[in-house]
């Protein structure tokens, strides 16, 4: 089988699986949409200067625990970095090329 045929087969398989797992795909897509909307807000707040979790929470209106969870996830996958402390809180900055 050549590369083109293989790619076609893979695409067809994914399409079939998406059909079979319709509910999962709908649920995860909704989750991703929500995740991206939150990340966009967080990145916007961090655009000009590093921020602490409570600062982001106040600016976005999101619960601080939720902001921390997303910042933690973004830090793990190198979308956000820590840049020192402000009082009892760490400061986080968006990595330049982060696109949500």
């Amino acid at each position, binding site marked *: 089988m050549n590369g083109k045929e293989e790619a076609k087969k*893979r*695409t067809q*398989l*994914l399409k079939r*699986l*998406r059909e079979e*797992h319709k509910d*999962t*795909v709908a649920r*995860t*897509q909704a*989750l*991703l949409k929500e*995740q991206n909307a939150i990340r966009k807000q967080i990145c916007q707040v961090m655009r000009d200067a590093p921020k*602490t*979790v*409570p600062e982001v*929470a106040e600016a976005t209106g999101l619960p*601080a*625990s939720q*902001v*921390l*969870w*997303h*910042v*933690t*996830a973004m*830090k*793990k*996958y190198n979308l956000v970095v*820590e840049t020192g*402390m402000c009082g*009892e*809180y*760490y400061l986080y900055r968006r990595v330049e090329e982060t696109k949500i």
Partner: protein
Amino acid sequence: MASDKLRVDALVVGGGIAGMQSALDLADQGYQVALVEKEASIGGKMIALSKVFPTLDCCSCITTPKMSAVAHHRNIHLLTYCEVQSIRENGGGFVAQVLKKPRYVNEDLCTGCRQCEYACPIDLPDPFDRGYGAHRAIRVPFSTAVPQIAVLDIENCLLCGKCEQVCPVSAVDFTQTPQQLEIEAGSIVLATGYEVTPRDAKKEYGGGKLPNVIDALFMERLLAPTGPYGHVLRPGDGKEPESIAYVQCAGSRDQTLGVPYCSRVCCMYAIKQAMLISGALPLADVTIYYMDIRTFGKGYEQFYQNAKAMGIEFVKGKVARITEDENQNPIVRVELIDEGSRVVERTHDLVVLSVGMLPRYNPQPLYGVPVADDGFVEVPSPNISPCVTDRPGIFVTGTAAGPMDIVDSIMTAGAAASEAAAYLRARKSASSVSTTTGKERELVYA
């Protein structure tokens, strides 16, 4: 890769420290061992811990070599992401039907490079970090996982195909299906471990509701170098806590929860964590609210005395309730036993519940091995044969048999391996037919 049929001397069920050690002890004696672990990596609870009492050794540093030793031992067949579905007896031995769950990743091709994980767009709560950290729908389970092979969680997958596109060795395989495997074994060692008390078990403590009330397993992750925040921060808002309290017996010695027994490790792990916090946050105050401090092991009492000398505050009292103030600081309402049972309320930045050990797996239906009143595997003669179950040929090790620490889990692992070896030898001499042949066996019977 495992073949469809496997013939071994011993089947070890569970790849925590107890199961790994039993497998190694048997394999080192020349026995062929199959180790079946239901998760995608071996390591159990221990690999998630920060440092261990009483030595304060780095947990990863002592667990990871054991994990690799298991994976590379020529006498051990490691079967991760597998579950035993049925057991039947066969001429004095056992035949296990094992289900190999699909990883949707070709185990022979995956190099653990994690490019799939970085490409996956969706973040999910990571149970390894008690839900406070994130992982992707496809991921290597954790940084020191063994085997270093990705696993795809199809139940939370977008089926976008991005992982497949970036995999440099074309290991992602959406066509995988569950596989059946048959294991014939002369004996079985149960090492299925324990669970901790759910943090919301005692409603009056607010666990699961108050964001700054956590369980001790999460504190282990906060203290570990691979923890989700990289620092000890409280999950409510990321604040570095200045005042941390421990509530002991939060799930043990508690009739209201149906757990009358002592979990045996909570005093020691709380003292250990308090010491580690003092190192990580030198300015923080740590208070331990306790009923009794039980430091029964070798060197454990000294460990406790060292903690007191370091300035950790031990307060004898039973915590009645935990609420929070307007800044989500937990307020602990406690009866101070040494001060005429005066009831006070003290505010802290973070409260850690010293949750107890609960049975995790009931082997009765599958293995015909009964559990005791406490739910842990019953051992009919605990004084004489602490690893021998009610069913000949089936042995138990580690916390599957009851609450115990790592030292005792390792000890019972050796004991269970010895019992299994003795059983196999007796069986062998009873029937002159050898179950396994090979060079290693000569070592045993030489």
